[in-house]
């Protein structure tokens, strides 16, 4: 049986890397004494996979994984048993039976919504910030992106769906950001911020929360 689950990743677990999240869940499943199915081969491991990775340091209200069990467990019970043994900062929100759906979750992803706070290192007026944002949104956003062939300038504007300033106070700006997120990749937020800092001439410390991953569940059928 395969279960699809959504979970949160908050403080302090936001610093746990993608690879370490694997181990975190594997150990939790062992503590919950769930009947795990294992891969074949020399070094058997549980059949656990995540829809996508989350940057280290970001929190999230909703990530996805799927896990294969060797015996059926009602999804609600699964969530309850895992939640009882998870460390602070990670919680299963929802679990469903994947049923006939055998493929990976990754191709179902369409976009993601974030909230971000930037704490500027030196004072910035609201007017300067607003004009920098509208300038940023008005044309191409060329950033230096690390690719296989080295660092290359790319336009990330097509990846950016929406960017809204929601609050501004004491040199701290809050944003709602929506960006593409698919199996091919997603909006690189850090590069977007860097482009903004470039326009402003001021750097900031960023705190990012992923609010939602938009999935096309109709594909599951």
């Amino acid at each position, binding site marked *: 049986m395969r279960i699809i689950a959504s979970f949160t990743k908050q*403080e*302090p*677990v936001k*610093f*746990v*890397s993608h690879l*370490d999240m694997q*181990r*975190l869940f*594997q*150990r*939790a*499943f*062992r*503590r919950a004494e769930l009947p795990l199915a*294992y891969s074949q081969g020399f070094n*058997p491991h549980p059949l656990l996979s995540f829809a996508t990775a989350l940057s*280290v*340091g970001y929190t999230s209200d909703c990530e996805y994984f799927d896990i294969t069990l060797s015996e059926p467990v009602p999804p609600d019970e699964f969530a309850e048993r895992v939640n009882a*043994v998870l*460390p*602070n*900062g990670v919680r299963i929100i929802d679990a469903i039976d994947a049923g006939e759906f055998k493929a990976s979750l990754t191709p179902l992803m369409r976009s993601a919504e974030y909230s971000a706070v930037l*704490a*500027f290192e030196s004072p910035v007026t609201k007017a300067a910030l607003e004009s920098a944002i509208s300038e940023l949104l008005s044309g191409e956003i060329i950033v230096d992106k690390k690719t296989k062939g080295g660092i290359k300038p790319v336009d990330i504007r097509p990846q950016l769906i929406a960017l809204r300033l929601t609050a501004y106070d*004491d*040199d*701290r700006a809050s944003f709602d950001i929506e960006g593409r997120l698919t199996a091919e990749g997603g909006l690189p937020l850090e590069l977007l911020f860097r482009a903004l800092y470039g326009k402003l001439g001021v750097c900031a*410390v960023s*705190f990012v929360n992923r609010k939602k991953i938009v999935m096309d569940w109709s594909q599951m059928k």
Partner: protein
Amino acid sequence: MDDKVRNMTREERLNSLIAKVEKPTRYMGGELNMRVKSGDGLYRFALCFPDTYEIGMSHLGSRIIYNVLNKRDDTYCERCYAPWVDMEALLRESGEKLFSIETKRPLDEFDVIGFSLLYEMCYTNILTMLDLSGIPLLARERGEDCPLVCAGGPCVCNPEPIADIVDLFFFGDGEELVNDFMDCYARCKKNGASKREMLLEMSGIEGIYVPAFYRAEYENGQFSRLVKTEEKAPDTVTRRIVRDLDKAEFTGDLIVPYMNIVHDRIALELFRGCTRGCRFCQAGFIYRPIRERKMNTMIAYADEQLKCTGHDEVSLFSLSSGDYTEIHEMVPTVLERYTKDKVSVSFPSLRIDSFLKDDLEKMQGVRKTGLTFAPEAGTQRLRDVINKGVTEEDLLRTVRDAFEAGWQGVKLYFMIGLPTETDEDILGIAELARKVSREFYSMPKEKRGKGLRCTVSASTFVPKPFTPFQWEPQITVEEVLRRQALLRGALKGIRGVEFNCHFSETSRLEACYARGDRRLAAVMVAAYRRGARFDSWDEHFKKEAWDEAFIENGLTIEQFANRRIGLDEPLAWAHMDALVTMDYLKREYNKAYEGAVTGDCREKCNGCFGAKIAGYCDMHCPGSKFNKAEEQEGGDK
């Protein structure tokens, strides 16, 4: 401190630093089973490990102390590890102080700071940690409102090189000692005692050493004696031991790290101490007498910890696990109990004998942990000198068994520079490796694995306090390099054999600090100021920093590392009573030069504790589980 500097809270500022380092989980905390306490009036104890998180979290002793302290209602023990160089730079740049893992409290706001000293080469990291907390490095410069700086662990055998840094040392087993210490701390605090009054009170506790109550004197450039400056302080400090290890406090619910730590598994200590008495081995003397945990206690621990951690590996370790009384019962029992749940079980330091061959085959099925042997020396003559009771026949028979069981990786550990070593002994190492290789390749192809992977590792002999070789010099760096080259040449072309040897500069500094005196604290501070950090990491070792620091202080590494100390000369650590007597060590020293071996003291007491045996060692007392005579009387079960 102002909690909100400009537009960020302290928590956000620390988070932004943590976010920038290579491994944020070193500092993040919040791991499963981390102890959380709140409330005013708790004594704050920072358990500090002067190396990285992944090394510190792998140390069982610290995990025991963490649990012992946190079981107290009046104390909250938090952890802190040496910040890696990236975090150190960020802390300095931002002006933030080094903070604890649990509550991110700056270290200088703790009542007590306790360091674990496992190896000499971590000493400069102690300085980094104090410095980054705004705590003066030298004990005499710390006032009443500074935390009490303590240290425990095997290096306390010779605490003198850091005596000027530390207020108080814990000598010996910590399980009971730290409780006595905290009781005394609480009493003194309630009475409003000054730091000095408190230290004086504590110096009366068995196992506690307060260096400020003693002054070192020197003659002709050498240590000559330690003079008491405080009448009430004890003349000698006796090592503390836990008599009944089986009943002693253990780790409780084990913290489960997020990152991959060095020993990422449940570690259970079968017994403490070792009876074999290899003459170079400090651990073999300073943890005596041997004290075991019962098999059922171990299994109960393993059950509990598997449940509360979700680990899939259990390691049952000790200094020499084959000596465990119930080993032949234990190995099959635990293998059977756990492997069905895909839990692998390992027994590091298990000497495999024929009884265990079947179990070996089972272990093989679970996980191919490497097979290791430590003959330490290449010839029987030298093995007799060092009292290493391994014969060539033993070794070859066991590797043959292992190869037949399908193993193809073997690690052989040796030491270069052991007392009386000649080139013949060095070549003997290669000879032994050749025989192991031959053993493998002479087996029919279908009976053995594909290819042998035999690693020959040669570390450099470091004379350590409280061993019969404590008077011996370390060979010079040039000589180490020559012997390494000789060995490398001799090993060339042996099929399936690979050579590994350790960088000798750090071994030399280790030898220096192991047998050093109080003058070395100033050297260490000077080296630290010149950038010495993480000296045990070869890539960080700054030779020039140390060389300059020694010159600045008018001392040399050689005078500590490469000098033969006369048997009647004063030793800088003579006031530490490790229970094994100096007379016994001298006897063993002389026997070494005669090439005479000393038997395992499970069979017969060799009298290493002298007159103190009555109070401290019941290995051959009536009623002791080690008492063979009694066992026979008890008859068949």
